[in-house]
């Protein structure tokens, strides 16, 4: 029997927690192509994902879920299109403590939705930080319609990441049912 692999893409602005999210649930060590940061404006962390992160969750012998994290920096956006091909859905990570990245997050969301109109969810990351914006305030800031799910998230906590993934999968099921009727 042919093994079915399905793909969920994790996207979002630079330093929004994409790698962390994949690390929290992947059964393999996340394959990251990281590089030291050179651009002055992006020196929030020492290194960043250049090409992609790659995580895996095996369901059984004939079903595997891959998690692909996109590079956060705009100059690598040529990779987005490739990564979005055939995705089951996608997660847009947004750093709740950095409102200066909200506009970019919105732009990334629109770009990915244009690439493939698959279900998606917005994960409001770093909700454990004192500076974090309230999720409903973020909904307004990101101009998200009420039909779009936005979940509080702490990417380093497995339980939180599980909730985000589950909500996305529930959304995918709902869309399948809606398309049928």
């Amino acid at each position, binding site marked *: 029997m042919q093994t079915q692999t*399905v793909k969920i893409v994790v996207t979002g602005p630079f330093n929004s927690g994409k790698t962390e999210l994949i690390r929290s649930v992947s059964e393999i060590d996340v394959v990251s192509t990281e590089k030291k940061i050179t651009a002055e404006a992006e020196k929030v962390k020492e290194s960043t994902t250049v090409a992609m992160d790659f995580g895996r*969750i095996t369901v059984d012998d004939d079903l595997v879920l891959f998690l692909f994290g996109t590079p956060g920096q705009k100059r690598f956006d040529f990779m987005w299109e490739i990564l*979005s091909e055939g995705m*089951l859905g996608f997660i847009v990570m947004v750093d709740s403590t950095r*409102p200066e990245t909200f506009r970019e997050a919105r732009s990334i969301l629109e770009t990915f939705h244009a690439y493939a109109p698959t279900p998606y969810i917005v994960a409001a990351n770093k909700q454990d930080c004192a500076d974090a914006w309230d999720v409903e305030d973020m909904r307004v800031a990101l101009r998200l319609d009420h039909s779009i799910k936005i979940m509080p998230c702490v990417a380093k906590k497995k339980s939180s990441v599980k909730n985000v*993934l589950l909500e996305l999968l529930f959304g*995918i099921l709902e869309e*399948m049912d809606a398309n049928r009727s």
Partner: protein
Amino acid sequence: MALKGNLRDFSITQLLNLIHIATKTGALYVEGGSDTVAVYFRDGKISFAQNANQSFDLLKILASSKKLKRSQVVMLQEKFKDLQPAELGLCLVNGGYLSQEDILDTLRAYYSGVVKQLFIWEDGFFHFEGPESAPEGNIMVRESLEDLIVEGARKLKEYEQLKDEIPSLEMALKFSDRPGTNMRAINLSQDEWRVVSYVNPKNSITQIAHATRLNEMDIRRVVYALLQAGIVEIIRPASGAVITPGRTFVAQDRDEQKSIVNRLIDRIRAI
């Protein structure tokens, strides 16, 4: 939860919209350069606003809006010395100088004016403190944010339209190849002439903006005007490849596809 950031990243219109929709109560402080503006809200409506660099003098505000004569202001300043605005307002109403509605109308316009000052701020740190109330002794109003948001949004819309017309400032300009265009017959503004002097396929619009010291909004306006006049053309980068999404599922049957998603759900629950 914190609500803070910079107007550079989150415009005042977006901020007001958020406060309006979420019917927030509290104080919004915006600091830009040497100015600090404090706007207080109650249930998503403006209740009080003040620029820290401008003294709040109720009598002068009423005189500016022609509710009081200058001569009355001098007399009233002497008569009601050292009174807080709320007490002073009461004295003015009780003394028959003005109606309560006169005072409230004037203050609604004044507080809105303080907020409108923020529309031209491109940069400024803001933070919202809830549920902070305005300093005691002031006169509170209930001024809806809708009109202000519309006004701010109009300015934003102009900017967005210009962005649609000129999607990237990294593009270059070249003179259009229209043999009939007579450059000498065209009237250009000073800024437009300055930009025209830099038109060259090797110069990006950003570089021209730097050279002519025009901000992003102004360079877009000028380039748009030149485009409309048919003087220049934007040299656009080659369009990207056509996207052909790969297949999400091997299975074509919808029930099989649902089964796959359900198996994924079970697996993730078990992690």
